[in-house]
């Protein structure tokens, strides 16, 4: 229990009692509680959290999808620097550096997608974050929690639209943010930042036409990960010297 701050300990105890073995992993990051739950127990756990006295998470504040493709990738470590252009020696195919034609092959890494839910109890003034990893990365499926909280309806539609996460049992799983007839799921990390189609009104045809995007993909600042004393503080001294760096 010492992994949790004093304020959160009663809540952790309560959540563990309520969910029992349904709870995969519970941890605290920045004093906020995160509970991982398997897709099979997803709806039942949510219902328990909503209905148990002392918890009563009556409001589902937020639901969003996350795509973990490329998590922790650094663009800076390159062999040589270029003398021209915006790439500054970066030859990675990092986020925002490719177009629709050259987009990377989608990798089916384990736990690539996640559904993250922020719960709030207005009665007990509590917050908790739930996280669910769908089983398959090529067709991520998570049971829908619309029956537990009505507000999940549009949030699930949004996560489906932007990440392609399918919510099983959702009454009306349509696209919500993107255009009618849109192809792809734009917030996935292997979807180009510049998009795939441009829309404009064609004077001659007298209607709106769709064309491939012609913008040059470019990102000005490379993605850098630094783990020096500025950010890790004392931890740096305890760590072993990095190899190959």
């Amino acid at each position: 229990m010492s992994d949790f701050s004093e304020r959160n300990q009663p809540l952790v105890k309560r959540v563990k009692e309520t969910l029992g073995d349904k709870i995969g992993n519970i941890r605290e990051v920045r004093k906020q509680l995160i509970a991982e739950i398997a897709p099979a127990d997803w709806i039942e756990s949510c219902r328990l959290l909503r209905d148990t006295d002392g918890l009563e998470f009556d409001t589902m504040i937020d639901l969003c999808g996350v795509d973990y493709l490329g998590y922790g990738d650094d663009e800076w470590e390159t062999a040589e620097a270029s003398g021209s252009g915006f790439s500054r020696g970066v030859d990675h195919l990092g986020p925002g550096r490719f177009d629709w034609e050259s987009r990377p092959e989608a990798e089916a890494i384990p736990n690539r997608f996640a559904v993250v839910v922020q719960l709030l109890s207005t009665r007990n003034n509590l917050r908790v974050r739930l996280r669910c990893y769908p089983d398959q990365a090529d067709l991520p499926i998570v049971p829908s929690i619309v029956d537990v909280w009505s507000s999940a309806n549009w949030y699930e539609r949004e996560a489906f639209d932007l990440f392609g996460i399918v919510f099983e049992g959702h009454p009306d799983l349509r696209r919500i943010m993107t255009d009618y007839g849109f192809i792809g799921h734009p917030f996935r990390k292997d979807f180009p930042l510049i998009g795939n189609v441009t829309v404009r009104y064609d004077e001659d045809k007298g209607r709106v036409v769709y064309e491939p995007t012609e913008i040059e993909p470019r990102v000005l600042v490379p993605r850098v990960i630094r783990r020096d004393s500025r950010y890790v503080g004392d931890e740096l001294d305890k760590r072993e010297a990095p190899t190959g760096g």
Partner: protein
Amino acid sequence: MAEIKNYTLNFGPQHPAAHGVLRLILEMDGEVVQRADPHVGLLHRATEKLAESKPYNQSIGYMDRLDYVSMMCNEHAYVRAIEQLLGIEPPERAQWIRTLFDEITRLMNHLMWLGANGLDLGAMTLFLYCFREREYLLDAYEAVSGARMHATYYRPGGVYRDLPEEMSRLAESRFRKASDVKRMNEWREGSLLDYLEQFMAYQAERIDDYETLVTDNRIWKQRNVGIGAVSPERARQLGFTGPMLRGSGVAWDLRKKQPYAKYREVDFDIPVGVNGDCYDRYLVRIEEMRQSVRICQQCIAWLRKNPGAVMAGNYKVAPPSRKEMKDDMEALIHHFKLFTEGYCVPEGETYAAVEAPKGEFGCYMISDGANKPFRVHLRAPGFAHISSMDEMARGHMLSDVVAIIGTQDIVFGEIDR
């Protein structure tokens, strides 16, 4: 007997009462709404994805453009998420300034709402009154940040700069007569705080004016009382926050329940509705304006007495001053690194929420240790509100749909993101 069928009505996306780009498909039985299907996303700009490709500080300006009538509150949620991940705390004066400007923003938002909602429901005068007052607050925005709307004023570690000692004065022109200029410059003789103090005293009386115009007005009541009523239980289920939730009688306000900035130290009340209809939500918002004036006055008093730093002294996140940069090699390096690469945020995730004028505006941020966020998700209050359109409008008349859109305080910048 003639067969009577339901018919479908396309409301918007260019309808003036649709508050932006809402396309609402209404299934009507005569003039009664049977089903409402809002189509959103016409203003989708992928703010969250754009933020993932830029260093942290470069996305603050995007936040202004989400809910573009309550700009600084959006920034507040975003910078608070970064601050939580970095583990830094802004100086006290910066927190008071944030409290002051959050409330100025709330006033601006509610003035805009009241004016536009009045216009939707046929009260033209209200609109002119509200926009007259809103202009003064936009001038306050301009004085601190240089921009009337999209301020980019809050930064991780504090605010961009201290409140100005001098207000800019207006000059005579083709559009402004000398007599008008003299009157308008009266408040601008002193500092920004002097200006705001005089405005707040003035504004407290103006709110009474709005109330005399509409609160007991028969037409206003006919358009609002009993329209779009939501029970407290349904309001929670539908994810309502802010005045929408309080209008239904739930005393929930993050400023009281989970205080941030300096809300713990200011004195104010939370108005709560009884019936959960459009009229109660109107009353809640009017009272919130009064409370905002009260909070602003307390902030002004504190800020007058306590000068100090408004930005954390940590050069990893805040740039050194020009003078330091030119004298000190170390500071120059920091300056260069900060503006070319930004700062790396330790690995982790957080959810930071503020009580924006429309409800809970939250920022869920995942960092993998890079100088850019790995994932940013913005929780916009309006998104949950408009998703309840079907439930709220069902069984009401077509003209009530306008009142319901108005009462939800819809802004598409934040719904579509």
